[in-house]
């Protein structure tokens, strides 16, 4: 069953330097209990597009200039401010990259989580306390009852992220938005958090949008991914198909840029030339063309739309044939061996 439907979402920032075209008409949908990865580099619009959905962007300078977001069939973009709370924090929960800046430093974690469940679930004080202990235990905080009176700084980075996750799941959300939750953590702690979210997702049948630039993490957690570039979705589909047969030159570049522990090192990394575009002055035609090895005349003029490469797998490129033929002939980069 479809839980979330995003249609032609468009977000702009109005700054003194000009109009930043952060998100340029993206559409996707998400089923109940499904995990979607949003993959891309800084400034590609992966965070902005999701924060816009839950109206967490500062408006102004941000402005949602078009599109629709349906959550359980209801348009959540145009809710009255008073009604937004029922969705955000309740049915849709969010965890952020840096738990230290998203937790209140002068409030005990017991009070912070209890506040959330009192507001969202209407529980009484004692019930809220019980629920707080329950979720802290669920995310693997040892002796949760004894830690209720502790402040965020008394927890380590990984434990703090667990507290954030406990708070997020405390109101039994249907959708969890995870905005690079493991980026600031060490690998062994990152592995703990990824496994935790995987387990919780199955236990609670929650849908997850996992925003990341880390292809390794996304391979562990997501079934389907959207690859974003310059505010567009440039490739979308089941993750296995995309990793097996990346069909956008940018995806090929991303996959080739990461060395792998399980493969040899006897070659250069395949990389994407240049740097991401200035979002105020996006190039004409395909936004990726200035960095693309497969560009044709057409790419300079016209922006490609997502077209089907194989069932459920779509990419936005005018020269998919050229790209795929080249990959078949000459495997390049580490990931393509």
């Amino acid at each position, binding site marked *: 069953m479809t839980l979330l439907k995003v249609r032609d979402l468009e977000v702009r920032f109005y700054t003194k330097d000009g109009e930043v075209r952060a998100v340029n008409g993206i559409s996707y949908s998400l089923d109940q209990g499904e995990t979607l990865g949003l993959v891309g580099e800084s400034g590609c619009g992966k965070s902005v597009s999701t924060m816009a959905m839950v109206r967490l962007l500062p408006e102004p300078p941000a402005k949602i200039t078009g599109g629709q977001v349906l959550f359980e069939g209801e348009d959540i973009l145009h809710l009255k401010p008073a009604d937004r709370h029922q969705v955000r924090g309740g049915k849709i929960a969010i965890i952020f990259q840096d738990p230290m800046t998203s937790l209140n430093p002068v409030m005990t974690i017991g009070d912070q989580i209890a506040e959330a469940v009192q507001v969202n679930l209407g529980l009484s004080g004692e019930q809220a306390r019980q629920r707080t202990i329950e979720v802290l235990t669920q995310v693997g905080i040892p002796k949760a009852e004894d830690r209720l009176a502790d402040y965020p700084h008394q927890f380590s980075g990984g434990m703090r992220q667990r507290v954030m996750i406990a708070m997020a799941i405390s109101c039994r959300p249907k959708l969890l938005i995870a905005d690079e939750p493991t980026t600031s953590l060490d690998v062994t702690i990152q592995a*703990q958090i990824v*496994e935790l979210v995987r387990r919780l997702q199955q236990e609670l049948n929650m849908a997850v949008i996992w925003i990341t*630039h880390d292809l390794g993490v996304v391979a562990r957690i997501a079934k389907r991914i959207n690859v974003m570039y310059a505010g567009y979705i440039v490739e979308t589909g089941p993750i296995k198909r995309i990793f097996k047969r990346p069909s956008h030159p940018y995806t090929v570049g991303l996959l080739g840029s990461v*060395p792998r*522990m399980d493969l040899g090192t006897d070659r250069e990394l395949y*990389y994407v030339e240049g*740097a991401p575009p200035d979002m105020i002055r996006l190039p004409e035609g395909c936004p990726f063309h200035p960095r693309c090895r497969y560009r044709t005349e057409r790419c300079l003029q016209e922006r490609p739309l997502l077209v089907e490469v194989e069932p459920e797998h779509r990419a936005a490129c005018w020269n998919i044939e050229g790209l795929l033929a080249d990959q078949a002939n000459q495997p390049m980069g580490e990931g393509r061996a």
Partner: protein
Amino acid sequence: MAEPNVLVKVENLKQYFPIKRGLLQRVVGHIKAVDGVSFDIYEGETLGLVGESGCGKTTTSRAILQLYRPTAGKVYMEGRDLTAMQGEELRQMRTRMQIIFQNPYSSLNPRMTVGRILTEPMQVHGVAKGKEAQERVAELLHLVGMNPYFVNRFPAEFSGGQRQRIGIARALTVNPSFIICDEPISSLDVSIQAQIVNLLKKLQRELGLTYLFISHDLSMVRFISNRMAVMYLGKIVELAPSEEIVTTPLHPYTQALWSAAPIPDPEIEESRERIVLEGDVPSPANPPKGCRFHTRCPQAMDICRQEEPLLQELQPGHWVACHRYGN
């Protein structure tokens, strides 16, 4: 095979930082950031240093360069003891060893043009001046893949990847033979990381540089390094040629680190079993007795709680500090 030349030799290096408390700022203890590490770096190789935050990898690099004066131990560069040097003598050695920092935003002076950033070290060390220095700047910019036309621009006008190229060019101004790369790519985007790593590899080939490459990104370290050392709580727990340490890690911590590193392939990830370590890294102010890893080690034995294991050479070139091996 001939024994490779040792360029940098680190012997039992210790770096403690005092913890001060109270009105009188009395020293109540020490953070043992680096607690007795020894290793050699061979000429022309890249030695990778990996470990989680707080394990002492950055402190080790600073102590090698004498940016911190080590609490104990010796560091030899080209056979000369840096810890015994002071003043002018040490300053002259700095042309032999340079560092590239993690954050290209905070390590370049925002009020200096690229040209000045690059000429200043040449003037300070008397490498070149005037027109010669300008020519050298153009040559260096070209070498790191930047347009020499950019000399009059300020760091703020560049992207992260370009700034890191400037940082690399600055390290090269004084013709060093040894460069410490301290997480040089971790603040960059994935596609840019690959550009910088390829550049570092190219420079090493062309200029015969020796690197100490520090990172928490295991696959990247493995990609660039000939040998790798794994640190945990101020100690080296394993050191071996990269291929060997990746395919047959011996220390339980190394095994757990490898298994935690995600592989960008959903087919593999689907069926991969993980060694997920419990808990967090203990505080370096009060490290556990015995083996420092025993509190998190899935294979800990009684002896691990009592006695500290020594780093021993199990196979030629493969060093491990673990009671599970050896006598």
